[in-house]
C-alpha cells in the first residue's frame, strides 16, 4: 500500500521535475510539565501530544509542496523547564529558523528570547494575555488562543442566552486566577454581572482515590450553597482540579460553563463542520487517537508556514513572516472563515468552539456581535486596548 502510493507520487511529480527542490525545515519544541495528572484519565496527555499535529501539518505541506518543488521537514524535540532554553539554542544552531513551542507562559517567553531575532517562534500552547500584551515579542506569534479570546467567546454565548448573572468559581493556582481575571474582563466587556465569587483551594493530594466520589458528592454542594441568585456557574480551573466535579453537584440547579460543562475551545475531536471531518479523518489515521487542541494549534502553525511558502515560493524566514503578517495572507482552518494574524500582538484570529462533552454546540463570535474590522476581533484584546508596544518590521 505504502509502495503503491510512493509509485503513484513518483509518477505524479514527473511533469514537475523541472522544479528545484527547496527544503523548509521547522522544529516543534515541547516542554513537558511535571505535575498532577488531570482529574479524568481520559484527559491524560498522549505521548505524541502536539507532535501528531506537527506530523499532519508537515504531511499536508508536503502534499502541496510536491507541486511547488518544496519539501518540508520537522524536528520533534522534548525538554523540561530546565533544559528548554538549551534545546532551543541547539535547534537554532542546527539552522532551523521556524520553531513551534508547546510550553507554559513563562517558558514560552524565555524560549522566544533564547531563540533570538533571526528565528520566528509560534506559541501553540500558552494562553497568557501578558504574552500578547506587556510581555509581547516581535519574534513570537500565537496559534493558541489567548485567555481573553476564550473567555470572550463564552461570554458572548452566555449573553446571547441572557444568562448574565454569573457565579464565578476560580482555582487557587496562578493560571486559574489569570483565567478568572479574564472572565471578569469578559463580564465587564459584554455586560454580565459576577454576583458571587469563590476560590476553590487546591489542598494537594492524589488526583483520584478509591471511593473518592463519596466526599466529592458531599463537598461540592456545600461549597456552592448560599450563593447570590445566579443564572450560571462559571468555572476558572485551568489546572484541572475541581471544575469537572461541578456539573450536577452545585447547590442550586444551574448550568456550569468554562472549565467544565460548556467549554470554549480552539478545537474538539467531534468538530465536523466546515470540512473539519477531513482534518479528523486524516489526523486519526495518522495518530490512532482523537485530536486535541494542542495538535490543532501546532497544525495551524505548520500550515501557516506552508501556506506562506506556497504563495511566496520562499523558504526564508523573513519572507515567510512578512507574508504571514501582510494583507494577503489567509489560512483555512476548518472554521468557516479565513484565519489571519493580528499585527498588533501576533495573535491568530480564530473562531472559538463551544463544546459540551462529546459535541460542539456553538461557535463564537456569536453573529450578533459586530465589529468595524473583523468580527473575530470581538474576541480577545483589540488594537486600541493592546499593551503590546513592539514595532514590527
Amino acid at each position, binding site marked *: 500500500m505504502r509502495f503503491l502510493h510512493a509509485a503513484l507520487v513518483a509518477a505524479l511529480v*514527473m511533469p514537475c521535475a523541472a522544479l528545484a527542490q527547496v527544503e523548509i525545515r521547522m522544529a516543534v519544541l515541547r516542554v513537558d510539565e511535571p505535575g498532577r495528572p488531570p482529574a479524568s484519565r481520559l484527559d491524560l496527555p498522549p505521548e505524541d501530544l502536539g507532535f501528531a499535529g506537527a506530523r499532519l501539518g508537515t504531511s499536508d505541506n508536503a502534499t*502541496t509542496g510536491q507541486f511547488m518543488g518544496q519539501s518540508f521537514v520537522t524536528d520533534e524535540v522534548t525538554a523540561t523547564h530546565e533544559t528548554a532554553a538549551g534545546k532551543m539554542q541547539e535547534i537554532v544552531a542546527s539552522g532551523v529558523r521556524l520553531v513551534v513551542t508547546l510550553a507554559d507562559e513563562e517558558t514560552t517567553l524565555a524560549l522566544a528570547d533564547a531563540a533570538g531575532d533571526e528565528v520566528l517562534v509560534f506559541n501553540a500552547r500558552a494562553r497568557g494575555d501578558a504574552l500578547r500584551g506587556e510581555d509581547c515579542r516581535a519574534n513570537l506569534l500565537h496559534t493558541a488562543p489567548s485567555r481573553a479570546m476564550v473567555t470572550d467567546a463564552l461570554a458572548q454565548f452566555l449573553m446571547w442566552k441572557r444568562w448574565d448573572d454569573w457565579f464565578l468559581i476560580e482555582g487557587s493556582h496562578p493560571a486559574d486566577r489569570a483565567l478568572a481575571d479574564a472572565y471578569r474582563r469578559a463580564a465587564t466587556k459584554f455586560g454580565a454581572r459576577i454576583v458571587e465569587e469563590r476560590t476553590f483551594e487546591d489542598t494537594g493530594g492524589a488526583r483520584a482515590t478509591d471511593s473518592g466520589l463519596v466526599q466529592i458528592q458531599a463537598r461540592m454542594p456545600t461549597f456552592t450553597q448560599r450563593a447570590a441568585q445566579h443564572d450560571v456557574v462559571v468555572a476558572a480551573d485551568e489546572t484541572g482540579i475541581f471544575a469537572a466535579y461541578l456539573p450536577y453537584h452545585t447547590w442550586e440547579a444551574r448550568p456550569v460553563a468554562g472549565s467544565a460543562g460548556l467549554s470554549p475551545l480552539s478545537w474538539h475531536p467531534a468538530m465536523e463542520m466546515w470540512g473539519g471531518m477531513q482534518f479528523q479523518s486524516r489526523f486519526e489515521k495518522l495518530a490512532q487517537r482523537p485530536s486535541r487542541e494542542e495538535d490543532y494549534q501546532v497544525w495551524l502553525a505548520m*500550515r501557516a508556514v506552508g501556506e506562506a511558502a506556497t504563495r511566496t515560493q520562499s523558504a526564508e524566514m523573513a519572507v515567510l513572516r512578512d507574508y504571514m503578517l501582510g494583507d494577503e495572507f489567509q489560512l483555512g482552518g476548518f472554521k468557516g472563515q479565513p484565519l489571519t494574524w493580528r499585527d498588533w500582538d501576533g495573535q491568530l484570529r480564530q473562531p472559538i468552539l463551544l463544546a459540551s462533552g462529546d459535541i460542539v454546540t456553538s461557535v463564537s463570535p456569536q453573529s450578533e456581535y459586530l465589529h468595524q474590522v473583523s468580527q473575530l476581533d470581538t474576541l480577545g484584546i483589540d488594537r486600541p486596548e493592546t499593551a503590546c508596544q513592539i514595532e514590527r518590521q
Partner: protein
Amino acid sequence: MIMRATGLLACLCTGSPALAGKIFVSNEKGNDITVLDSESFEVIATFPGGQRPRGITASPDGKWLYVCASDDNLVRVFSTDTYEEQPTLPSGPDPELFVLHPSGNPLYIANEDDNIVTVVDVETRTVLAEVPVGVEPEGMGVSPDGRIVVNTSETTNMAHFIDTETFEIVQNVLVDQRPRFAQFTDDGATLLVSSEIGGTVSVIDPASGQIEKKITFEVPGVLPEALQPVGVRVTADGSKAYVALGPANRVAVVDGATWEVTDYLLVGQRVWQLAFSPDQKYLFTTNGNSNDISIIDVASDEVIRSVQVGEQPWGVVAVE
C-alpha cells in the same frame, strides 16, 4: 432520441401525464433523493439515496442517475425512470463530488480523505486509476472536449489539471482558500474556480494556467465572511455565470464577458449547488439550511419559486 420516443409510447399506453423533465435533488441529512417535475415544479417522488447523498449527476442520455453516497463510500446508481437502484460503483473513501466524462464514461470522483481522484469505468464498474492530488480534493470539472479533468484541493488550494488519457497532472494553478468547485465554459476557453473561504471566483485561462481575473462579491448588510462562493454554472452561450454564495443566501449573477457581478438574487439559506434545466430556462439552487430549492428564471434573473424538498438538500441535477 430513441428514449424519448419510447417514453411517449409508454405515456400513451398507461395514460400518465405528458412527458416532462425531472429535477433530482440529493438530501444530505435526509438520506434521500427528491424528484420534481421540471415544468410544474411539484414533488413527484422521493426515494432512498444511501447514507449522506451529496454529489449528484446524470448520464448524458438522461437514463442513469449517479449519487455520491458519502458515508457508504460508494456511488449509487438509479434509473431516472423507475428510480430502481442499479449495481453500485466503487468510489474510494468518502466521495463528495464527481464529474462524468462528456461521453458518459468514465466517472471522475474526488476522495476527500485520501488526497486522490478515483477514475471509475461506469460500465465495467472498475477503478481505472487513482490520481494523487493535493490535500482534500473536492471540486471536479471536465473540459467540453473531455481531454482535461480539473480537481480542486481545499487545503492545498490548487486547481489540478489532469490529462484524461494519461491520468497525469499536467498543470497546477494556485487559487484562493478552500476551492470548492470547478466549471468550464461550454466553449472550453475559460475555467471558473470558486474559493469558499477566500471569497473569490478565479477566472482561469486553461491553456496558459493564468488567472485572468478574480471575481469578488459584496452585498450591503452581509458580513464579508459570509460571502462564500461554492456552486458555479455558466449558460451555454457564455453570456452569464451564476455563483452560489453559501451562508450569504444569495446567488450572484456574473456577466460572462466582463466577469463583473451584475446582480445578487436572494434565495434560501446556505445555498450550495446549482443546476440548469436542460433547456436552460431555469436554474435550480439547493438551500441546505432552509430545506428547499429556489427556482430562478434565467431570462429575467428572477427567483420565481421555492419548493420544499428533503432535509438539507446538497446537490441537484435536471434531466430531460
